[in-house]
């Protein structure tokens, strides 16, 4: 009652809640997604106005082995396929991340420590900064006249004297050199390694030339700086590259070798032709003893290797006189593709045993799930502590001990990284997403197919994984991501975050999205629907540039499985899965009204004899006369009569009238919505499973009730018995609650006993 006496009396507090926007977890992602348009359709496919630019390169490159330097000159021909007129172009200068005055050296934290090892002290405070970065000698137009340009860290803007109109091409040339860095002792995805034992270097060279940035209708120019963690956005084009290295070097690169007859000895040509028709094991083009001999050479002569590559987004190469070289042919569809490995003796025996096999298995498996690998070869190059991908060539770690021994970890780590990097040919080299903005689109998707390939390799080559039964993948299965997802929220970022700003990039961009896709495949969509949608996406965006929406839309569009709730939860939030069995209420058919009804009638002051005749369910706990063991039709005369009046005797005999009713109350302490998968066990030991779809949570995000009826007593109910949902806390997954010994207690009792 509101009092109106004077001003000193306050009206009672209004407890009316405020209104809210649509927060239902199943709402469609109209607000999060970009609007579909003529460039990218609502179905997730390229639209009628879709365009992409093209950048062709003609390059002459020389490696100065003595000074660890690259000299280069190039002519870039850029085709403007956009409807827009361009006044300037942006060119990426990745090596500038290593310029002495580079701000990228200053964006990470630096603190003091109370004590240092002398080498650490020198590294932190006394070392001369490395003289890295591109030294640009000239930027000239197609007539050889200087072109106006300005360098902003790792991005160079070229100011075109004439606007580049839609549909037109422009060419310009750049000459440069830079110092290659030691990738073992410094940082980087490329560089050299010096082998003290023989004084030779092996080079893995990438990001070695000024290259075009991407221009599109999503970002305009993708000219976000290269700070180190965010990777690359690159247009497709055709490359012609001539690389001059010491004459005794073995080299391989992106593209088809044009002058093999000038480079290869007669013996190498013979072996190469042998490899072209060998499908079951690698053929050595350069053997270990030949490589060991070459290590002593230090030739002062030079050789030029000439390559041409069509429709690639980048170019890389590896060269050393230490390289052993093997090749094997793989049948992909109706074409022959070459699987190649290059490695110094330090990689053996691991590399000669497994590298090319892993390359071949990767090409075959990825082709099964996406499209036939369209290039003519894929190379795996041995490099210490590196895992990095380029079109047709990648650099991979995996080095045994000096005596040739190696642990399982080294072996499986090597096979895993080779699969991963070769797999990158598909994502992002061919399905070419903007890695600078979305690391997960290639890393997460690739890690998912890597997991499938690792498992396939284990099945196809049981000897390689013996005595294990399955390849020991460390990413993919749902239960392997729960540690990461249960970390303190301060250290978590959604998958849909720029990679530069993410705390733990590994699990965030690799593990979590890969696991999400695995869960989609195995638990939400099923393999048939998933595989078809995934292949549709891959084929739609082959040799094109997809955005996250294109992937999200295609997976739904091609399967009729609504996934908005899944994408939002897994990709746009840091929510985790925690579903539990809150309580289980057990009922039987009772001859008299239940205690609950009695109490309710009493509250309302209605005598029990006014209660209409109904079929009553009573809780097990209130069964004082053991009615639950009786037959339902004997307990409920009403039900018995009703059936007799409405069904024939035959029909009644065929009815399954349940004896027991289990009402399960599920709760969801975690934010993510997932299907409810339960396995229940009867008294007689038999088991059964039910899977409620995720939509069961659509009206109540906190609690859901379900009923199981049966004629046998249920003694045990387990939630997510196969650990498919990435539930971070399984202590609330059982009824009755399991009192399991912790890992700690199990160990302690073992050593004490």
């Amino acid at each position, binding site marked *: 009652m509101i009092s109106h006496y004077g001003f000193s009396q306050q009206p009672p507090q209004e407890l009316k809640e405020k209104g809210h926007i649509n927060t239902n977890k199943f709402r469609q992602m109209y607000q999060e997604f970009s609007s579909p348009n003529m460039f990218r359709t609502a179905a997730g496919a390229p639209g009628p106005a879709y365009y992409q630019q093209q950048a062709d390169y003609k390059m002459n490159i020389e490696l100065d082995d003595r000074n660890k330097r690259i000299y280069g000159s190039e002519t870039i021909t850029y085709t403007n396929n956009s409807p827009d007129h361009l006044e300037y172009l942006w060119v990426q200068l990745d090596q500038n991340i290593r310029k002495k005055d580079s701000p990228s050296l200053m964006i990470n*934290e630096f*603190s003091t420590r109370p004590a240092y090892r002398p080498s650490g002290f020198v590294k932190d405070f006394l070392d001369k900064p490395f003289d890295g970065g591109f030294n640009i000698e000239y930027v000239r137009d197609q007539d050889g006249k200087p072109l106006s340009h300005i360098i902003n860290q790792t991005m160079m803007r070229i100011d075109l004297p004439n606007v580049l109109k839609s549909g037109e091409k422009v060419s310009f040339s750049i000459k440069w050199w830079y110092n290659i860095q030691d990738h073992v002792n410094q940082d980087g*995805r490329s560089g050299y390694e010096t082998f003290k034992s023989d004084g030779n270097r092996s080079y893995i060279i990438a990001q070695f030339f000024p290259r075009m940035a991407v221009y599109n209708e999503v970002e305009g120019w993708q000219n976000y700086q290269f700070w180190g963690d965010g*990777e690359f956005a690159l247009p497709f084009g055709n490359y012609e590259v001539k690389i001059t290295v010491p004459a005794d070097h073995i080299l391989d690169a992106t593209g088809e070798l044009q002058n093999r007859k000038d480079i290869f000895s007669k013996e190498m040509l013979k072996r190469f032709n042998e490899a072209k028709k060998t499908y079951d094991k690698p053929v050595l083009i350069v053997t270990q003893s030949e490589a060991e001999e070459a290590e002593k050479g230090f030739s002062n002569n030079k050789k030029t290797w000439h390559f041409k590559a069509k429709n690639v987004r980048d170019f890389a190469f590896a060269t050393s006189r230490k390289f052993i070289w093997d090749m094997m042919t793989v049948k992909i569809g109706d074409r022959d593709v070459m699987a190649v490995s290059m490695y110094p003796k330090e990689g053996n025996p691991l590399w000669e045993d497994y590298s090319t096999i892993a390359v071949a298995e990767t090409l075959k498996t990825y082709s099964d799930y996406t499209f036939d690998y369209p290039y003519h070869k894929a190379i795996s190059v041995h490099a210490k*502590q*590196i*895992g*990095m*991908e380029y079109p047709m060539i990648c650099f*991979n*770690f995996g080095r045994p001990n000096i005596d040739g021994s190696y*642990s*399982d*970890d*080294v072996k499986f*780590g090597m096979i*895993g*990284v080779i699969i*991963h*990097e070769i797999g990158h040919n598909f994502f992002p080299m061919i399905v070419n997403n903007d890695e600078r903005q979305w690391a997960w689109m290639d*890393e997460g998707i690739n890690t998912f197919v890597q997991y499938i390939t690792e498992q396939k390799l284990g099945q196809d080559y049981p000897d390689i994984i013996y005595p*294990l039964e399955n390849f*020991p993948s*460390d990413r993919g299965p749902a239960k392997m991501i729960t*540690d*990461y997802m*249960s*970390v*303190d929220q*301060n*250290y978590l970022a959604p998958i849909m975050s720029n990679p530069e700003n993410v*705390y*733990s*990039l*590994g*699990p965030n961009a*690799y*593990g979590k999205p890969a696991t999400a896709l695995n869960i989609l495949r195995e638990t939400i969509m099923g393999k048939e629907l998933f595989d078809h949608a995934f292949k549709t996406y891959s084929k739609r965006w082959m040799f094109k540039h997809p955005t996250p929406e294109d992937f999200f839309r295609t997976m739904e569009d091609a399967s009729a499985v609504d996934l908005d709730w899944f994408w939002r939860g897994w990709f746009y939030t840091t929510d985790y899965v925690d579903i539990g069995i809150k309580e289980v209420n057990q009922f039987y058919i009772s001859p008299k009204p239940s205690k609950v009804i009695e109490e309710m009638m009493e509250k309302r002051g209605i005598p029990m004899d006014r209660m209409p005749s109904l079929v009553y369910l009573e809780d097990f706990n209130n069964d004082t006369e053991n009615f639950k063991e009786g037959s339902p039709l004997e307990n409920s005369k009403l039900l018995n009569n009703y059936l007799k009046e409405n069904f024939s005797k035959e029909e009644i005999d065929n009815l399954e009238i349940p004896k027991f009713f289990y009402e399960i109350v599920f709760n969801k302490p975690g934010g993510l919505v997932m299907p409810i998968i339960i396995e229940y066990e009867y008294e007689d030991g038999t088991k059964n499973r039910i899977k409620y779809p995720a939509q069961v949570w659509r009206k109540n995000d906190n609690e859901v009730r379900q009923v199981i009826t049966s004629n046998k007593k249920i003694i045990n109910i387990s939630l997510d018995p196969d650990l498919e949902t990435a539930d971070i806390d399984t202590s609330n997954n059982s009824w009755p609650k399991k009192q399991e010994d*912790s*890992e*700690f*207690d199990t*160990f*302690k009792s073992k*050593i004490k006993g």
Partner: protein
Amino acid sequence: MAFIPHKYYVSTSLYEFKEDRGSLQITIKIFKDDFINAFKKNKGINLQMRDDLNSKEIKFKINSYLLSHLSIFLDNKKHELFYLGLKKDTELITCFLEIENLPEFKKIKLENTILFDLFENQKNIIHLKKGNKKRSFILSKDTPNSVLEF
């Protein structure tokens, strides 16, 4: 990229306070190869070559390695950790440590620098469980310890 060479440099530790027993149980999971390499660097012993990692001699050395990288302060008082032993799996090594006769406390300071001497990017994920309260955080070379009030 596949990365940050070799998986991700992470260890996971569970510090569970068993109030009914008055003890703190610590379970630390580290990638087996990382542990072997760190140990080799620190003590000069290659654990890969040893079969029984719980033998007296090895246990003593592992104990000294772990204790030099772990410390716990309860209400500003340092407490002794007791190393029980370790379990070896395909990929992981699980170390078990314990503090018995735990007093009541309000503030805990934890330091865990395992593998920091080997890897710049090592992250040690710590889960603390006391009753039904759970806190988790990540320790790294830049933040090797954490202070919490329960």
